[in-house]
């Protein structure tokens, strides 16, 4: 019974989602739309569950003074500060909106905005910017013409890298055209082959899950 109910729910939902897409019969669409709403509510609960799990694990580590407990404490303090600041901002905006008779009012002088702009924003951008350094280092090590395939990859990468930026056209007028040709033809053909393959795999896996042949959601 414990296994049959989830398999039944999964099959029921899956079939209605397919029927909504391929059938014009309106009750199918209505049921599928209701199920979509349930799906979104469930996923929103998953976020709450994730937050609760984060609190539980990190709070335990802080209480027991485990390794790096200071960072975990910082994480909890940051999370609660942002949650409270976000709640206060939301409340202020809602009250201001009611005062204008329902038109939304955005408040930009809140603690939430300050922390988003001056803490989260630069930290996030810095982490992402580090990628450029790792990409440069990885390209130097990985792009070696060791065989025919690697040489083809190397030549295509060099043409696309130079042709994609304005200096490519300044060096030789053919670079942007060559870059565009690689992206439009060989790249599109490759992408399409990958996407069709992945789509067929997805259909097969979807049908196996809907009909209960595979039950990945019962694991873990």
């Amino acid at each position, binding site marked *: 019974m414990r296994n049959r109910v989830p398999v039944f729910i999964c099959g029921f939902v899956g079939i209605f989602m397919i029927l909504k*897409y391929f059938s014009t019969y309106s009750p199918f669409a209505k049921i599928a739309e209701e199920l979509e709403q349930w799906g*979104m509510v469930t996923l929103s609960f998953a976020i709450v569950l994730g937050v609760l799990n984060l609190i539980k694990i990190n709070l335990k580590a802080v209480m027991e003074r485990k390794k790096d407990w200071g960072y975990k404490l910082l994480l909890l303090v940051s999370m609660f500060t942002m949650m409270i600041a976000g709640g206060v901002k939301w409340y202020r905006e809602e009250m201001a909106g009611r005062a204008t008779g329902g*038109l939304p009012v955005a408040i930009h002088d809140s603690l939430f905005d300050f922390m988003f702009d001056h803490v989260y924003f630069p930290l996030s951008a810095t982490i992402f910017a580090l990628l450029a350094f790792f990409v*440069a280092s990885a390209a130097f090590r990985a792009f070696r013409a060791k065989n025919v395939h690697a040489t083809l990859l190397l030549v295509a990468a060099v043409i696309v890298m130079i042709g*994609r930026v304005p200096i490519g056209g300044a060096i030789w007028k053919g670079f942007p055209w060559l870059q565009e040709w690689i992206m439009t033809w060989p790249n599109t053909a490759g992408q399409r082959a990958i*996407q069709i393959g992945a789509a067929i795999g997805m259909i097969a896996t979807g049908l196996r899950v809907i009909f209960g042949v595979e039950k990945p959601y019962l694991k873990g």
Partner: protein
Amino acid sequence: MNGSQQDISTGWERWLERFVALDRRWIFLVLGSVVVLFLVVPVSMPVTVSEQVRAMYETIEALPPGARVHLSIDYGPGSEAELWPQHIAILRQLLEKDCKVICSSLWTDGPPMIEKAFTVVVGQLEREGKKKVRGVDYVNLGFKAGDRVAIAKIGSSFKGAFPTDYQGNPTANLPIMQGWDTYRDIDLLITIAVGDPGAVEYIQQAQSRYGMRMVAGVTAVISPQLYPYYQSRNLLGFVGGLAGAAEYEKLVGRPGYATRGMFIQSAVHILIVGLVLAGNAAQFWLWWLRRRKGARV
């Protein structure tokens, strides 16, 4: 081979071995120096507009005043350097054309990006004497969890997917939301996206189902995935990365952040290509030296 020739050969070999296995911190240092140098000394570069960027610009330009546009902002501060310039250019073009801009996000850190862009663009237009009213001309519907499911739900009912806007006001009462509710009522879908969920998911879940017109702005790493959809006309145009944004800035006639970044990006690309070619030359030379040495022994 006499002694001195062998010494020179071994010297080269040692030097080349060291270069092939160059400590990555040297690469970081050179790359950082190049970026800082060209940030301090800006150089302008001529920008050539590609076909897909022009197609996106023309699709937006063809919109009549009052057209409803769903602008999905699916990125956070991490991708700001690449996506912010196109976000600003596109939003300004839409508001200048008096389109009704309905913004939402599938990324948790997307709504503050929407707010920041509104603050910048609405502020610019206000200074130029064009007043835009929140809730009438534009709206931020906020974040929606659920990735593909959320896209499907948004398509069938905006008000159902977003009962309130980002500021907590009931969407059913907002003037901009009156008289329509689904993707069938939307004139154009635009997503500015960094990954999954993003442009590909919108094409699969919304565009292919409702058949509305769609364009996208994405990071350079995502743009190769969009070429098949552009060829099949699911996507009427797209902007890829900072280079695409610079092309877009040229088309709207307001060179900005992306145009200024083009020389830095050009210099970094040339540096990486130079490093790759030098690495290969060193590897080949090393192989040739060892082969010659092996043949003589």
